[in-house]
């Protein structure tokens, strides 16, 4: 798992620029499934055909994109101005190493004298060590993107780095495909690696429309209530797969939630229920696209989401994979 995670984290791909991660995932998922294709928006969809006579269509979805910065302007001084893509946490982003899609390294810094609480896209810049605009333009073009430097570290029993959101969900999907490839699969399973989730759940909407699944299950990170000062929330890392009941974008299908809890108990899979107060997921679009689907999510509890040190527990990821496999084989 760690190797796949490292490989995926090392493919910087902000929303709308998922080419690199998509290619990488293709290499893992193609041998495990029957058909792989990319749609107009760039969603990568792999299909594993089921054998049951009354088989259903199940869409499993994790987003490939990550938050980051897009270059809007290069100043005479060679400093690079950017806009944000997705919800940036500037406390974490500032004074950090960033890297561009072309591999250009830089540091993201706020204008001098800006109070921490007022830092925003308009008053930060990226310094790539260029002496002037001309030199900077050789390395960076308008529309290029930068992300905070990717990383994966083992910290105690946990795994830490970025972007866990949502590469760890993509890893889970690949692991599910691995497990399903070892047995006979009952239902048709559509593995959807979606685009543009971080800018408002855009990609999975069109994929879900085209797939028209009976069930849609998202795999994404969720916040936890187990750190100092965190909002009260009954979800912790190491607490098992988080069965989503609700987030700010969706109220999960009761049928799906109940079935997941039942299967977790039956199969001795460690689980917890999740009610995420702020944040949306691809669950929402799968529920509403086309004629709608029974939608739910299995979340990976994650500390410090949208920072450079997102932290997860590998036991939780394994529980998510086991629960997903039980679900697609028993629904």
């Amino acid at each position: 798992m760690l190797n796949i995670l490292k490989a995926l984290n090392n493919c910087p791909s902000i929303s709308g620029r998922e080419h690199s991660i998509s290619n990488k995932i293709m290499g893992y998922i193609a041998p495990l499934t029957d058909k792989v294709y990319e749609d107009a928006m760039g969603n990568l969809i792999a299909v594993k055909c089921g054998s049951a006579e009354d088989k259903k269509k199940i869409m499993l979805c994790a987003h490939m994109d990550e938050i980051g910065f897009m270059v809007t302007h290069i100043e005479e001084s060679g400093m690079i101005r950017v806009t944000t893509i997705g919800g940036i946490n500037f406390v974490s982003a500032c004074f950090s190493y960033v890297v561009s899609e072309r591999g250009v390294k830089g540091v993201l810094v706020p204008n001098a004298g800006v109070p921490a609480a007022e830092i925003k896209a308009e008053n930060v810049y990226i310094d790539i060590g260029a002496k002037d605009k001309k030199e900077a333009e050789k390395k960076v073009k308008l529309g290029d993107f930068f992300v905070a430097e990717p990383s994966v570290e083992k910290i105690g029993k946990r795994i830490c780095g970025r972007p866990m959101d949502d590469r760890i969900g993509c890893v889970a999907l690949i692991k599910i495909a691995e497990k399903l490839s070892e047995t006979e699969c009952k239902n048709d399973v559509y593995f959807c690696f979606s685009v543009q989730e971080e800018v408002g759940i855009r990609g999975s909407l069109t994929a879900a429309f085209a797939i028209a699944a009976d069930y849609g299950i998202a795999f994404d990170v969720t916040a936890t209530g187990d750190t100092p000062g965190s909002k009260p929330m009954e979800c912790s890392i190491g607490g098992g797969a988080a069965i989503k009941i609700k987030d700010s974008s969706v109220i999960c299908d009761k049928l799906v939630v109940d079935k997941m809890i039942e299967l977790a108990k039956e199969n001795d899979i460690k689980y917890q229920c999740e009610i995420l107060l702020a944040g949306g997921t691809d669950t929402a679009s799968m529920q509403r696209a086309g004629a709608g689907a029974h939608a739910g999510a299995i979340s990976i509890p994650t500390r410090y989401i949208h920072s450079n040190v997102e932290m997860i527990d590998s036991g939780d990821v394994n529980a998510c994979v086991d629960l997903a496999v039980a679900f697609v084989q028993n629904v």
Partner: protein
Amino acid sequence: MKKYYGTELVGKLSELFGPSGCEGNVAEFIISQIDDCCDAYCTDRAGNVIAKMCGSGLEYNAAEPRKVMVCAHMDEVGVMIRDFDEDGYIKIAPIGSIDPRVLCGRNLVLGDEDKRIEGIVASKAIHMQSPEERKHATPIYKMNVDIGANTESEARAELDIGDVGVFASNFSLFGKDGRYMKGKALDGRIPCAAMIEIMRSFRESAKALPCDVYFAFTCCEETSFSATRVAAQTIKPDAAIVLDSVEAGDAVSGEPSCAVKLGEGVAISFADRGAIYDRRLTELAIQEAENGNVKYQIKKTTSGKTGAVNIQRACEGVKVISLAVPVRYMHSASCVADSEDYISLKNFVYTMITANKI
């Protein structure tokens, strides 16, 4: 004044009455301009005009034709009558986003294209205003529109609640050789004019199009993008070129180095608040502009939204790109645009489609 630029069509469109929800009259005019150059057209239930030009020739795949949508919006910002007072003044609500400061003291045309009741947005003379009043713009809901009626019943004899209005503004050309265009509603009508002229050039040159091209003249863009979604769901295109305008901040911006400039050509966006545009198509477009010597600029900010919001995410998804003509003083009675940019926009779209780069 010389008219080198072929902007008569923009002028006619600019002066038409068509606030969001009441575009019928603009639609009618557009149909009169295109019915002999397209293969088919219709007006859908949302009020969009959709015209189709079929592909042909060697590059055209007749079995599975590629569908390209080109769209622009017909509607303009305006006002809606929401009440009358006993002295015959009219109370209004904005349709679309209008700065109250550009509305105050302006002439309006109320009713519809035929009725054309003149109204003046009342303003208090500067020397009558208290120091506090001078600091703040009068909010639109507090404005009075004077239609020369002395009582409520006199006013109601002319107009009704729910009637709409737009800026009264004649189109004109100004600057050296009449290069610059001034008028209302230029933000949507310049792209509409460009689409009409592109259709004419396709027809006149009898050009074999490599794909089926659907020209969608859409409604209600100033209030939401839902009519645009309807058009996209009807057409189900493979790709869409979304034509719109972009505020040219060169005259008023605080950060001129980042502003889109009038006369610097078509503005191409990588992303805005509504959509991240398809990268490959956007890069192809830039390449094509370079090859075809079409003047373009990159929009260096990500403000604003276009109909791409709903086209990109319609049905199974659509690849979208955004081309915008720079316009100064948008959503006012006097939008200003450069005829050269209009020509660039036409050439750009023409080239992209005929070169099969979309």
